């Protein structure tokens, strides 16, 4: 990956690119002291990305600084994946990367060459909802709906990975996903019911 900034030669390329990734991923409030005066801007680096999203192979050219979350939401209109904190703390942006759950706000999109991403839009079968989505409706496992995509993506891997054996184990696995409306009890009910059916999901 080419850095989009150039420094005055005293630091190595590696240092530059690492620190710039860190700079980009860290919320501005925490990086006030970072010495940026000596950095001069270069044109934005556009990079090629080959990625599969919801079963569709995409060949893209993207701004190297784009996170997977912003690629999904701003470039590809998969707005079902939500932005809640951009710090990996709330879980609203949870997607599946090669079948494993991941927080898309903490991933630079370019690090996912040839990976398979599933978002909430790709979980069901066309217009037919996934059993976990149906269970969420049945148990009213949400109110405002903003954390819901992330909760459902985590809920699916919770069952798939065998973490839905008890309410306590579901809760522990799901602690990565905040729901401020407080639908937690209904979410656990939904997951427990899907797990009980034993269906492969």
């Amino acid at each position, binding site marked *: 990956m080419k850095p989009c900034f150039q420094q005055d030669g005293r630091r190595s390329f590696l240092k530059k690119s690492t620190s710039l990734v860190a700079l980009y991923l860290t919320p*501005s409030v925490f990086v006030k002291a970072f010495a*940026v005066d000596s950095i001069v801007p270069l044109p934005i680096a556009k990079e090629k990305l080959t990625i599969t999203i919801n079963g569709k192979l995409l060949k893209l050219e993207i701004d190297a600084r784009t996170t997977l979350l912003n690629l999904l939401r701003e470039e590809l209109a*998969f707005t079902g994946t939500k932005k809640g*904190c951009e710090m990996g703390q709330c879980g609203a942006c949870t997607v599946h990367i090669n079948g494993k759950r991941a927080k898309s706000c903490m991933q630079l999109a370019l690090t996912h060459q040839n990976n398979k991403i599933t978002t909430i839009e790709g979980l069901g079968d066309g217009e037919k909802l996934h059993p976990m*989505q*149906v269970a969420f409706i049945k148990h009213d496992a949400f109110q405002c709906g903003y954390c819901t*995509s992330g909760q459902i993506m985590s809920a699916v891997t919770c069952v798939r990975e065998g973490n839905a054996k008890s309410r306590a184990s579901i809760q*522990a696995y799901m602690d990565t996903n905040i729901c*401020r409306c*407080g639908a937690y009890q209904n979410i656990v009910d939904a997951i427990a019911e899907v797990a009980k059916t034993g269906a492969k999901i």
Partner: protein
Amino acid sequence: MKSYNNTILWEDERVDGADKVNGKAKYAAEHSLPNMAYAVFVTSTIAKGSIKNLDTSKALAMPGVLDVIYYANCPSVPGYISNAAERPKNAIEWRGHKVLHDNKVRFFGQPIALVVADSFESANAAIRFVKAEYAPESFETNFDKARLDAKNLKINSNYKRGTEKKYKEAFAFVESEFNIPIEVHNAMELFATIAHWEGDDKVTLYDKTQGPKSTQFTVSRTFGIPDKNVRVIAENVGGAFGSGLRSWANVPAACIAAKKLNRPVKLVLTRPQMFSLVGYRPQSWQKVGIGADAAGNFTGISHEAITNTSRYEDFREGIVDASKFLYACENVDTKYNLLPLDLSTPVWMRGPGEASGCFALESAIDELSYKLKMDPIELRLKNYTTVNPENKLPFSDINLKDCYAYGINKIGWKNRPTVPGSLKENGMLIGYGMAVGIFGAGKGSASVRIVLSNDGKLLLECGVSDMGPGTTTAMTILASEAMQMPIQKIKFKLGDSDLPPGPSQGGSGTTSTVGSAVDLACKTLQQKLKEIAIKSAPVFAGMNAEALEVKNEMVISKTNANAKMPIVDVLKLANQDKIDLTITSNGKNAAQLKFTSNSFSAHFVKLGVNPKNGTIKILQVVTTGDAGKIISPKTARSQMLGGVVGGIGMALSEKLEIDHKTGQIINASFGGYHVPLHSHIPPTDVWFVNKPDPNINDIGAKGIGEIALIGFAAAITNAVYNATGKRVRDLPITPEKLGFKT
């Protein structure tokens, strides 16, 4: 598990549920417009002072950056003009901090510039290159310190009936102080505005707001343009809890940038900015004194409170109000002062005022019960009132006794130890606690458009919003009941200021207010249908409207069951493709005003305290609501569950931390500000009295959003006292406050 193909399976499910689980529901920031630019705030790194110089040159040189807007180049905004004589006639001065307007800094983290770029990445990268040179001034953010000096306080309101401080003469009394820190709404959706000027005086906004109409009004008056030229769209709102009841800096900033650059601009706040730019529950200090005679009758209640506000705006709430009317007592006095600090302005947060006030009042009553050696529920029943002692009007309905009875049984109150710290289970000290919540139940005016098409579908529209409680669902159910037709044929549309005017969603008033309008609209439509039927259908010829009813999608004669006709046929016969009406329902009528209306709740908690380290595990919760008829049982239950989660956060973990040396919030993230997670939530039982309130409105329903939370924190601290004998009056409860070192 049944299969689902975006058709309703369960009659009680959320009508917008499918869109919320498949990612189709669009929130403010998720709209995309051609040629849209992205904006990010640069925020101040001092708490108070002025900006001597702002160097934007490096940021402007960054790739993709279009503009850096700040006080020196901000276009003039009519609502920013302080002098009324100079302001255009239809403009009103912007309330609060005028973002990007001047070089003054009023709180740490205040927006001082707006970087606009052609991508989010470019805007976000450039904010670090905007350099501010400040002239700092001394400031005060320390509530605990500043409140001690009376000179700092602004007198707000005092109240007295009977004799002041009468409690001190009582057979038994308590006098205690309570502290609640700043709590932050922190809805999951970040505040966002997309502004798009379609003409010089015409703008469309996609905005996170609890009131599309109120935002429309704010924007039209700030920019001095006609109301009809401002359209505010908020189809889905990702939680708000009160923070969306007014417009914040993101709204004018997005409008200013979009106008200056002549292209649509999207401005999304960051999570840290959600802690300082969109309000919070103010910090509070309270002192409550309650006295009772030997039989437990309250003889005097005194309630004093101080809450913080900002230096540039007053924000007050009903923190001492419940003490005036929740219990029968002849001698009551309250005092409420504001303390301005160098922080941003607070705003209503779920259960505003009462959530803080009932924590103090309901804790003090629990304390008094131990002094009187009386069961705390018995003490509350002793002072139960069906007449509001403040305004002497009867409550329109009150069934708290039923809530007590249900809770006592369900939580196993009989197992509660009368001596604190005397019950152990599985190595944990066990305690039981309860507390009551109360909140006003209003009914305002709202307009609803109702359209019955000749394909049998019914559309209703109102410019209210739904931030999560399920307004769309409740209104659809109401219409379904009023029209006696299946919910699948009904669509309720909201979240757009172009729709007929509805209230902001707040203060637990939406179901009562908009619900009454929906009910009236349906009744008006039925009347119209009957009239058309009589006029057009021979089968009803000569009948009068009173003899007909509309149900099961038919017009039917009450006396002759054979005289009936499907409503679609009535329309076809009359050669009408639709009936399209807009009706307005008003506030309370004269008969309803003879009562005082409130919703009530009683919360019951069983918890365990680890005697080795003071950690708390909530074992069981029973939460009960007395809020008239429950329109949508499933979503109402979810709202109560949410109140419990909010209450657990208030009691056990939520506290905004400020470094008073710099004025900076130091835990402005979910990593530092702890909200409840899955593991913290105990099995919770929700119960409603579910009896129509005959005196509030025609539908018998009252709100539950606030009472779900109000009182809950006291139920927890009361249970902690019951478990340990330690009374925690400063939230949140921590092991240190229980006497454990961590």
